[in-house]
């Protein structure tokens, strides 16, 4: 499946405290996390995330294990995240909550430009350039195809 969005360009080492601050964690209200996504980086970003593909620098999602981070991005309408590398817990969490990630280096990002990605085929395309992304394991593809780990297990009841 090919996913499309417009590019949001972010830097390196975007940590989970920046993605969703600790002060918003004590709730089960997922819309609150989406409303405050990336607030400490730019308070106006959360409202502009719908339909975007985040193209970030290395080590995206470093820091705490908080799953609210990928949930916030997904809830805010982020289609996929592209980065040369991801922090490993964030990587697993994103797959588990059904947020597509593409590990691809050298993707040039122009704010607002169209970006297309295919997780199954492992590529990112923007500005007329297609870049290969690292393939996911078979299990990760199954989880993502199910829409996340909750759905994966629901289907196996």
């Amino acid at each position: 499946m090919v996913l499309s969005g417009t590019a949001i360009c972010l830097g390196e080492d975007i940590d989970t405290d920046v993605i969703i601050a600790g002060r918003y964690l004590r709730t089960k209200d997922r819309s609150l996390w989406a409303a405050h996504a990336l607030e400490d980086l730019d308070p106006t970003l959360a409202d502009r995330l719908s339909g975007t593909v985040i193209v970030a620098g290395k080590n995206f999602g470093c820091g705490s294990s908080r799953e609210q981070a990928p949930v916030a991005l997904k809830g805010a309408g982020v289609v996929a995240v592209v980065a040369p590398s991801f922090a490993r817990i964030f990587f697993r969490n994103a797959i588990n909550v059904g947020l597509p990630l593409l590990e691809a280096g050298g993707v040039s990002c122009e704010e607002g430009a169209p970006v297309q990605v295919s997780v199954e085929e492992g590529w990112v395309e923007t500005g007329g350039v297609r870049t290969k992304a690292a393939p996911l394991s078979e299990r990760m593809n199954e989880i993502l195809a199910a829409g996340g780990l909750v759905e994966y297990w629901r289907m196996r009841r």
Partner: protein
Amino acid sequence: MSTLAEDILGAPAGSYIDREVDRAFVHDGTGVLTREAWLAMGHGTIAHPERCSVIFDHIVPANNSTTAHLQHELREFAREKGMQFYEGGCGICHQVMGEGNTLPGEIIVGADSHSCTGGAFGAFSTGIGATEMAAIWLSGSTWFKVPSSIGIALEGNLPNNCEAKDVALRYIRMLGMDGGTYKALEFIGDGAKGLTIDSRMVLSNMAVEAGAKAGLFAADKTTKEYLSGFGHSIDVHPPQENTSYEQELSIDLSGMEPLLAVPHRVDTVVPVKEKEGLALDQVFIGTCTNGRYEDLETLAAGVKGQTVQVRTILAPASRRVLERATQSGVLQTILEAGIIVLPPGCGPCLGAHMGVLGEGEVGLSTANRNFKNRMGVGAEYYLSSVATAAASAIHGVITVPGGN
């Protein structure tokens, strides 16, 4: 020869494997989402409740009725399902796990990034997220990609004014915040063998700040002796020789000096002397990095007979630590210096309550993260050893410990 990570996981680096986990723990923060995900999965079963722990440490006691309600639901759930439940005040999950609940060779997962702390005991202990933990409650197992390992050879002995925390900041500076991503760190060499369990836990704990999946020490005589204090009798095997690491770093402990991570990155590390004299609004000692008994002893030694010149907060890592400090007199020394003592737990580390900084304030902390706004919106946080924190608390400004 194989690495310690490969030995414990039983497969070569790069393999995808499924493994049953020996122990799985959540805290009051991640446990809420884990329970939600487990309910949504709709199976209604828990494979091995006796292997699952719920440890309240992040916001204890609850700061408001929303938190209290979420904790109430999780507490009732844990008890009903027959999980090991630790009420707020027992301690930080990683410390509780380290008090006889982590054994060499085990595979342990925690829904918290600092779950790598258990590597100090020669267990493969790593952090995962809440939904994945829910699947582990349900099935008892999960998948791993066996990591390659970076060997960190420690040689020599630390100078008097340095401690394990300085070594942790040193290796993070060397590796950078992502230098260990998808990898295990393995601490080797005579310098590693000479460290106490409390100190090993500091080095293992901070592995995740370099992006690593685990921070491992081979179990040895020190591990055996420590665990025997909790009624465990373990076998110690001689460590593998000629292990092939993907990368090897070497740190000469005798050449170390006290270090500081400056805002807002853990890998921007400078000698404390470069920032000496910087005025502080708060000093915080504690966390899963530096709230252990050894740390309280260091703090007491640093403040003995003096009074802190800046708001200073201590949160012991566990009740056991607090009890020991009470019995030995270490706590009395700390109290006499004018330090605020919080209940055992995470304290202000995650910026949720009890010691959050205000805009424009500058803090020094023995924690593991100084990310922007983490411990207070608009505040700046420096990270250091306990000895540096104690000396700085006494002077009210960043101070090199040991009177240098």
